[in-house]
């Protein structure tokens, strides 16, 4: 098989995912170079048998990358849903910057990550460098992918045993966060069975918990009619699919929340109550800090929302009875163990 990319670990022809993060592999410069050089597989960089290579690169994972890394613990998958520019990627960036500062996610302390390269790439947008102020991460592009890039985090959870305050029981929680382009969910809301909705269906099928982003800036702006229509359409599609899974409804860019017209707010609240009655709502202003240093840290909602979702997913996992293995060609199912298929 002719490998069209000179990057040794890039199997773009097999799963459509460019390892360099290029959304459209056709224009990846490494692929272009390969085509120009007419490289045959034998000419690609030789495997170095005198070196051991860990099975991760630090870049975001795809579904098939996960199994060899986290076989000892079942990772939780959280899907970030919402329209384009609703703040999903900025939320992830802020989450990592907090961890980088040594802040825990409430009781969850950073313990490991196999996608530090992906996280550092995001963090770069939030850092000061000479001549470069922090800026919003770019739009997550749709590209050719059918599964989203997954960012990995492992946490150590320290909880005191209620019957013995002196004893601390530490457990590990492994987490995969799916940051998908907003267009996926806009499309999925319109036509859930369309081929263009495959990525969104994958997330909805596999996710253990959902973060739904409600963009206050869009809902208060001049195009708010379109924004609320899209949101309600998404809620209508999502509601029946959620089943028992916890949903954190995150009002992003919450400094604009007061500017949302009352009528719009009522329509949204009505839809939320109808479609996601068990949601918990959070308000965050990640990336646009409140100038008043005495107020609650604006990124506090970032930690609270993630911690709540992790707690809820763990509770839900305990409630669910053990089920027989579910056979599926999708390697991500290999350790899901669910007997009920959730339709995407």
């Amino acid at each position, binding site marked *: 098989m002719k490998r069209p990319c000179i990057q040794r670990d890039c199997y773009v022809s097999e799963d459509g995912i460019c390892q360099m993060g290029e959304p459209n592999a056709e224009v990846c410069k490494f692929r272009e170079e390969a085509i120009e050089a007419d490289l045959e597989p034998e000419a690609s960089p030789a495997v170095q048998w*005198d070196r051991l290579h*860990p099975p991760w690169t*630090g870049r975001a994972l795809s579904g098939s990358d996960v199994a060899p890394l986290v076989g000892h613990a079942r990772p939780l998958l959280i899907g970030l849903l919402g329209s384009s520019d609703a703040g999903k990627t900025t939320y992830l960036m802020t989450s990592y910057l907090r961890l980088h500062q040594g802040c825990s996610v409430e009781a969850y302390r950073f313990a490991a990550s196999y996608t530090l390269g992906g996280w550092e790439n995001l963090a770069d947008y*939030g850092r*000061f460098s000479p001549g470069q102020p922090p800026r919003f991460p770019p739009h997550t592009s749709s590209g050719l992918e059918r599964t989203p890039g997954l960012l990995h985090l492992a946490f150590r959870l320290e909880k005191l045993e209620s019957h013995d305050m002196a004893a601390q029981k530490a457990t590990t929680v492994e987490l995969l966060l799916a940051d998908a382009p907003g267009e996926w969910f806009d499309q999925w809301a319109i036509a859930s069975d369309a081929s263009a909705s495959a990525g969104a269906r994958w997330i909805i099928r596999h996710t253990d918990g959902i973060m739904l982003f409600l963009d206050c800036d869009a809902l208060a702006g001049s195009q708010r009619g379109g924004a609320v229509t899209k949101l309600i359409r998404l809620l209508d599609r999502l509601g029946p699919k959620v089943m028992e899974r916890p949903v954190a409804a995150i009002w992003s860019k919450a400094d604009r929340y007061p500017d949302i017209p009352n009528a719009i707010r009522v329509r949204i609240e009505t839809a939320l109550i109808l479609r996601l009655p068990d949601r918990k709502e959070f308000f965050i202003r990640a990336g646009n*800090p409140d100038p008043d*240093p005495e107020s609650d840290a604006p990124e506090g909602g970032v930690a609270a929302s993630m911690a709540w979702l992790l707690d809820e997913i763990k509770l839900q996992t305990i409630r669910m009875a053990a089920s027989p293995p579910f056979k599926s060609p999708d390697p991500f199912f290999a350790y899901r163990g669910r007997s009920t298929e959730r339709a995407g």
Partner: protein
Amino acid sequence: MSKTVLVLGGPDTGKTHFTGQLYGRLMLTDSAIKLLSAPDDLGAIQQVLDSLGEGRAADHTPIAADHRMPWELRMPSGAEATIIWPDYGGEQLQGIFHSRSVPVSWVDRVRDSDCWLLFIRPLILRQFEDILTRRRGLVAASASELTPKIALKPWSDAAYYVELLQILLWTRHAEVPAQRRSPRLLVMLSCWDELSQKELPAEALRAVLPLFYEFLASNWDSSCCRIFGLSSLGKALSKTEPDQDFQDLGPDQQGYVVMPDGERSPDLTVPLAWLLEDQT
């Protein structure tokens, strides 16, 4: 008892000066650990000892250098121990990170080592300000940034150290994350004399590499991971201009370690004594 120490440290993190000064202390009778006898061949240490004796900094260890010196030691308990003390070019460790692979020559020593000694020099770490440390908002991305990046930017030093240890732990087939007791880990914050704020070593590490600090706390049992400060020479030395005071007093009288509780000691063998002591 025979133990293998894995010494980890990039270039310019102070490994070579510590090796020279440690050797000098091991030859003293009032150190916690003592050398039973001088090794047959001082080898690479000789150049370091000569330089320090003349009040000069030692030369940079060549990249390809890979020395292993067997030392026969008398431990504080009276027991005898043999350790293999390595010295190598710090670029080899960086090479593991950048190539994302572990050379076969390193695999055995990573797997067989009982304890790890990691040198980090706080002064050469890059410190970032970001939107959380400096309360400023984000601006819209410039037009050139609207397409996602192809090349990944260099990682922060904290992420670098986390990834490095993740790779080494994977090489040992160790579960990550997990609160481990083996290998015992000592983090040596070197060139302590360069630092202006005098806090506890653990606090100093937490201040410069918070993400890495959390990683250590989550992946090592607290009794098996210690953070020390180190100033092998007590001051900066030039490679070319001899320091007269240093010459006159002699290397044995220079340098100190900072214990985890903040106490200073001139006995540079104390960290090694903790690293090598039998776990109960």
